[in-house]
């Protein structure tokens, strides 16, 4: 790795690469910090929910470590109450996660500084929050593997540990509503949406995808609303984009 990035034996140049890499790693940690504060309550709540469904702390930890996706983990817990429907679990997980296809496609265009192997590895950790912070970074600077690692390492640790803690605490944690812990889940997404606010064109996308999601959720059971909202927002951006181009041309 080091040799490839700094092929010269120039000690000074080597030092500089090392320093920037460390700075990028710390920069990633700094930018994910508020979201770590938000994800710990979610992890606790997930652990507590898993415990009520009969999962042991070990099973909860294994799930958080391997799946590493809040949405699908909550959905899996939800469906787990009616066991043996493997097709149902699989399909629901796929629908909840289908947005990841768009997310990874979007981020893949911003990963020029990554080796092929580190790209595949990075995608393992593409949780909503990490992906959003990586997109933020890509808008202001080149996204480096070190920065991405800075986003992933503390967030992953916080998610797995808080899940296990929640499962172990179980009933002792009390009603999450009384402590206001349940608010953490929507709060995270508001923080992220506000970060992407770029003016009226963002407003149009937000309105359309929000309306499509709410309407679909109202009329269609299940998690189809996620696919509907994402696609509606994407189409809005396409239409807005072509209109912009016409205005420029005329």
């Amino acid at each position, binding site marked *: 790795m080091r040799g490839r990035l700094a092929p010269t034996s120039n000690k000074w140049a080597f030092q500089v690469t090392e320093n920037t890499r460390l700075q990028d790693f710390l920069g990633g940690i700094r930018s994910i910090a508020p979201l770590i504060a938000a994800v710990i309550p979610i992890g606790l709540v997930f652990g507590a929910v898993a415990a009520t469904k009969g999962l042991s702390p070990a099973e909860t930890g294994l799930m958080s470590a391997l799946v590493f996706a809040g949405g699908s983990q909550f959905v899996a817990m939800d469906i787990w109450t009616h066991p043996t429907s493997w097709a149902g679990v699989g399909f629901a997980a796929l629908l909840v996660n289908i947005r990841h296809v768009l997310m990874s496609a*979007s981020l893949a265009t911003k990963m020029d500084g990554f080796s092929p192997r580190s790209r595949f590895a990075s995608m393992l950790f593409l949780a909503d929050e990490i992906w959003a912070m990586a997109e933020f970074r890509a808008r202001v600077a080149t996204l480096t593997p070190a920065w991405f690692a800075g986003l992933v390492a503390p967030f992953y640790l916080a998610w797995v540990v808080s899940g296990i803690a929640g499962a172990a605490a179980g009933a002792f944690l009390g009603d999450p509503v009384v402590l206001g812990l349940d608010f953490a889940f929507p709060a995270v997404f508001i923080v992220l949406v506000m970060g992407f606010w770029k003016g009226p064109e963002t407003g149009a996308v937000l309105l359309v995808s929000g309306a499509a999601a709410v309407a679909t959720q109202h009329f269609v059971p299940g998690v189809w609303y996620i696919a509907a909202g994402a696609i509606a927002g994407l189409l809005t951006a396409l239409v807005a*984009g072509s209109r912009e181009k016409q205005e420029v041309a005329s």
Partner: protein
Amino acid sequence: MGFELSTEMTLLIIAAAIATYMTRIGGFLLITRMKTIPPRMEQALNAVPAAVLTTLVAPAFFTSGWDVKIAMLAAMLVGLRYPGLIMLAGGWVAAMACRHLIGL
């Protein structure tokens, strides 16, 4: 206590993990198969973050009670001026105030 792993749950976890990774690598594989990305497609992809996040948060707003609605609005207003952590705190304070002081 706490270390037991049932076979059925372990299989379910592995299945969920594989399904999740497939979606995470899927878009990446699709986009790298294409030599160049058309500008309009890039434009659409740039809108993906906001669209996806709104999709996840909007139904929660309508299905939740007044306490969470007020807290979400409070967080949004705070977020117009202040960074994420203060925004979270503002929303949480609003949610707790609604529940324990007003009793919504």
